[in-house]
């Protein structure tokens, strides 16, 4: 407990968290500070490119671990199962309609790549290694949750002709969405070019990485803060509680999977973080197409306004402490 607190405190005064808090506070104070959309997108491309490539290069360096395939499979299963748990919690804790609840559930099965990046950077500050292929696990966990949610909607509301529309076009869009393609593509290129390739571009993707992450989290703080301020009337206590409880529940599922797979301490902690995190890029876009009746303010506010800040500030140190305590790492 003590170590969690001191770790949380240490995490809270790292530059990346402080810039997130700065953005959050600026949005609440209604400052006009803002990052242009193109710059924000450019930074997100940079982050996906960098973590994908580094993951691939690390796999190339350490050899393909026998648990790689199993870990990816575990990720797919987790992503598909978590929405069902989320749905059950939502029906108990909140008064959301079936469609709104399913849309929210999809977000919690999927993952937030920035939370993953922040966790990786906490890991490296703590001097812990992790499996390079966790990046591939992250990519594999993006999509299955969406299918689970659509299935939930179809089941809950078999008569409503509108909802849960899944067609070939949407399936292609989900599986080939920009962030998955860039992440997996960079991972493969990093794997092919290995240490040689990494040496060539290290001063672009390794050394400035933390700084770009600070600026990006400033923007995330601004967006999350602005969203929360605009939609605070939606935040009933039940919803708020779900936004904090669900990541903890998810992290325990991730813990189980990580231990079963025999991952390193860092790998277990990243598996917990992935399961705990909620999507705010790929899934919202898919929901606008597949479940247009669901209210975007609800799922965006929950995942970006509550769960993302929670994971960033308190969740990550908690997951690390638990992973360390249990694996003895």
């Amino acid at each position, binding site marked *: 407990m003590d170590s969690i607190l001191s770790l949380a405190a240490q995490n809270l005064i790292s530059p990346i968290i402080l810039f997130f808090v700065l953005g959050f506070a600026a949005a609440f104070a209604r400052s006009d500070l*803002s990052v*242009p*959309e193109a710059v924000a997108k450019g930074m997100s491309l940079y982050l996906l490119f960098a973590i994908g490539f580094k993951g691939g290069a690390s796999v190339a360096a350490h050899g393909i671990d026998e648990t790689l395939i199993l870990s990816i499979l575990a990720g797919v299963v987790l992503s598909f199962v978590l929405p069902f748990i989320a749905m059950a919690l939502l029906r108990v804790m909140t008064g959301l309609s079936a469609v709104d609840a399913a849309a929210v559930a999809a977000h919690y099965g999927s993952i937030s790549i920035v939370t993953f990046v922040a966790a990786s950077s906490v890991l490296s500050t703590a001097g812990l290694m992790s499996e390079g292929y966790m990046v591939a696990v992250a990519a594999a966990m993006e999509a299955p949750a969406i299918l689970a949610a659509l299935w939930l909607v179809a089941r809950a509301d078999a008569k409503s002709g509108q909802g849960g529309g899944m067609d070939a076009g949407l399936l292609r869009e989900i599986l080939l969405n920009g962030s998955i393609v860039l992440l997996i593509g960079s991972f493969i290129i990093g794997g092919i070019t290995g240490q040689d390739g990494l040496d060539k571009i290290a001063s672009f993707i390794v050394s400035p990485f933390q700084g770009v992450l600070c600026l990006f989290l400033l923007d995330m703080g601004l*967006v999350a803060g602005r969203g929360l301020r*605009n939609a605070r009337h939606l935040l009933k206590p039940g919803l708020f509680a779900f936004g904090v409880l669900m990541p903890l529940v998810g992290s325990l599922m991730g813990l189980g999977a990580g231990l079963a797979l025999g991952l390193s301490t860092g790998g277990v902690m990243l598996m917990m973080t992935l399961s705990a995190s909620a999507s705010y890029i*790929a899934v*919202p876009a898919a929901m*606008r197409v597949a479940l247009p009746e669901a*209210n975007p303010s609800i799922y965006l506010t929950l995942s970006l306004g509550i769960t993302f800040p929670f994971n960033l500030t308190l969740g990550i140190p908690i997951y690390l402490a638990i992973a360390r305590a249990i694996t003895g790492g």
Partner: protein
Amino acid sequence: MEMHKAKRVEITIEAVMETRLTEALIKAGVTGFTILPVLAGSGRSGQWSREGQVSRAGGMINVVCIYSTRTSGPLLTAAFAVVSPHRVVSVRIVKCCAQSGSLK
């Protein structure tokens, strides 16, 4: 330059629906349209802004389509089939004229 009577439909729709809408238009034989970016907006589903956003989910585009008054039927039907389940749509029709040949 000769002017013809034409209609101008303007559809404000989620950015993620762009391909679906343009494919529906092209399928309906409508090959002329222009897509404008939208910065921010407000409607029944609340206020939003593109500032700092990464996801395409939180944004709209503005599709402008000018077509001769004779072809209105299929255009509207095709567009509306895509558009109708979405809450965030505004269709406006104005009388206008356009350079001959650029309409279909």
